[in-house]
């Protein structure tokens, strides 16, 4: 029997049109330890307005684009990246 102690706290960043959709640029969210990126995204999708987010989301974990099965760590910075349009 293992005891899971504590929670995983991550910072979520929303840019450009995603910030407008969700009405905020930043959220602190808590997840059970060992949670993967896909679980975090599922949580974000329950937020008010989130049904306007696209079906496919590009997300960066600590400044690197990351797939949904990425295991998150406490303190991670998770950025939701709308299609980019620099230049």
């Amino acid at each position, binding site marked *: 029997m293992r005891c899971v102690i504590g929670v995983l706290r991550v910072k979520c960043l929303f840019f450009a049109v995603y910030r407008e959709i969700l009405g905020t640029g930043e959220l602190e969210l808590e997840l059970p330890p060992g949670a993967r990126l896909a679980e975090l995204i599922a949580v974000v999708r329950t937020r008010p307005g989130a049904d306007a987010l696209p079906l496919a989301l*590009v997300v960066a974990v600590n400044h690197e684009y990351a*797939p949904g099965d990425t295991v998150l760590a406490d303190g991670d910075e998770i950025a939701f*990246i709308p299609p980019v349009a620099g230049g």
Partner: protein
Amino acid sequence: MYCVITAAPIDILEMMQHVRRDADGAVLLFSGVVRDHDGGRPVTGLRYEAYAEMASQKLTGICKDVSAQFEIGDIAVVHRIGELAVGEISVAIAVAAPHRDAAFKASREVIERLKREVPIWKRERYADGEEVWLDGTIPNPPTAG
């Protein structure tokens, strides 16, 4: 080499002087400038937003790749954020190289990859007062779901 995201006007002379070494015979400066139209619609300005830490990191990675790919000397990239008027420089890429062919290829590669990979967004302001976040490019890496 430097890659910077800044709200200040871009100093292109400084960039060119920074990248040039005595071994270089060519310096190429690409400037992206705010246009007064987009798809036939009059534009009065742009607002750029960036995920600055990641954007400068990504740009640095691109510049390192390009430096390994082509025979260039130094390279500098500056992308501006905030409100820009028509005619202002939004992005500048300075590449120095011993020979021009590498400078042209490297400059082109940096701007193409910047537009595909770097987390920067722009909101167009039209003459009629409407503002719209421009449709962008989905970065290559697999979507997270």
